[in-house]
């Protein structure tokens, strides 16, 4: 009975954990008892765990993570700082929208990682090129989501504030900005995923350190457990960032907290 009640109350957690654990156990089981393990092509969770532990103790992965984070932070920050104002301007002024819409849409729709070799040629190997790639990939979700948020501001609320004698500044700060904020945070989640792709691809192409570099180096040398350990670190970082954004969204938009947003 107790188990049943616990399940009913924590269904989400229980089922989620169960699927992850089944995956890991199934993987381990298959490669231990069903197929013989060829360590050049495959690895299994127990070996990954050992490698992860070693790497963590030696600290190499954390150093790589720190290197990648720096580039990510620079690129992402610039994406926020430029993307939001550009999107807002596009939302406020038709002229700006018409000028940039076609151009930005084309860039957003294209797989911009294709530009990675060019960017590395221009900016060289290192922080700058990686940051530029992250920026390029993550700026568009900010632009388009801010734009959509500003454009979908409820006209009624604008009229309400105007009717009480609100100035244009009041409209921006008391209506347009708060109603756009959830759109921006949703954009940030998309930008996050794209930015991570940017950093990894950048490091695949040309780098001497960083998580992406670690993954590609371990892969090239058939050290699969270490490679998966690096991927695991990346996954953990990504999950923490995504969850952080969800928490931020709840903090910034408590009126939406009862809505299930994912």
């Amino acid at each position, binding site marked *: 009975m107790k188990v049943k009640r616990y399940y009913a109350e924590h269904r989400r957690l229980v089922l989620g954990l169960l699927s992850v654990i089944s995956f890991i156990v199934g993987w381990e089981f298959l490669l231990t008892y069903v197929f013989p393990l060829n360590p050049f092509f495959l690895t299994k969770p127990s070996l990954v765990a050992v490698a992860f532990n070693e790497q963590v103790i030696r600290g190499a992965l954390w150093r790589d993570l720190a290197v990648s984070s720096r580039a990510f932070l620079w690129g992402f920050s610039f994406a926020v700082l430029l993307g939001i104002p550009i999107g807002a301007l596009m939302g406020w002024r038709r002229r700006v929208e018409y000028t940039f819409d076609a151009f930005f849409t084309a860039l957003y729709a294209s797989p911009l990682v294709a530009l990675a070799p060019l960017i590395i040629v221009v900016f060289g190997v290192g922080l700058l090129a990686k940051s530029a790639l992250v920026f390029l990939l993550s700026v568009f979700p900010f632009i388009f989501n801010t734009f959509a948020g500003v454009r979908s501001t409820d006209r009624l609320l604008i009229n309400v504030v105007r009717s009480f*004698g609100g100035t244009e500044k009041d409209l921006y700060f008391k209506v347009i900005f708060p109603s756009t904020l959830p759109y921006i945070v949703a954009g940030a989640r998309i930008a996050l995923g794209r930015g991570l792709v940017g950093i990894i691809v950048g490091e695949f192409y040309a780098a001497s350190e960083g998580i992406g570099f670690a993954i590609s180096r371990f892969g090239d040398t058939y050290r699969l457990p270490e490679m998966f350990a690096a991927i695991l670190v990346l996954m953990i970082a990504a999950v923490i960032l995504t969850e952080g954004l969800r928490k931020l969204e709840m903090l910034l938009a408590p009126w939406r907290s009862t809505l299930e947003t994912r």
Partner: protein
Amino acid sequence: MTPFIKARRITLTFSPKNRPPVTALQDFSLDVAKGEFVSIVGPSGCGKSTFLNILLGLIKPDSGEIQLNGAPITGPSQERAMVFQEFGLLPWRTVKANVELGLELKGVPSNERSARASKLIELVGLRGFEQHYPHELSGGMKQRVGLARALATEPEVLLMDEPFAALDAQTRDLMQAELLQIWQRTQKTVVFVTHSIEEAAYLSDRVIVMTARPGRTKDILRIELPRPRDYEMRLTPEFNEIKSRVWGVLKEELSSRE
């Protein structure tokens, strides 16, 4: 004596892009005395809401004169406040912060704002809900917030644009009764737009019936029922007689269109 609200030959034509222009109001005139409760009824699209927006100062008429207390209306001002049909509450603000909106825009210091908002929240019967967000309230409660917000700036004129149209029938009856009480207590001048003849007859001193578009005054009916009015009054033959009189005038406008 000059009327408190004076509208003379208001004409307004909308010219939407790629569509023929629409004349919403044509030579519409109306006088409202101070403290009077006036309702405007008319077919859909006859320009009654447009007229409220002109009174509010959000729309300028193409021609005609509109004055409040002898001074022309040129834009929004806190002497006039609107209660909106779809409530128009800011979803990211609590009940209290919503009620404070007008005061905040006026620059009233925060402790005074807070005190006045609390008083009005009490007046509309929402004590205990100060920290709730609009999505946590029922439709009736939302409109109470809308009413409190409009009253917070102590306007002389309360403009109500089908304020109870989005509510269910019982909530609507309840809100009408409470509005009458609040009106009697605060002595505001009210211009009330509605589709409901019953609502107009129950609440008002006068009912203005508008023609189909372009809107002008079709007829003005004085509602000679004693005040304070209560729900039982709506069951009397006199009330029904008034309703059918309003309906008789309005019917011609509806049938001339369909």
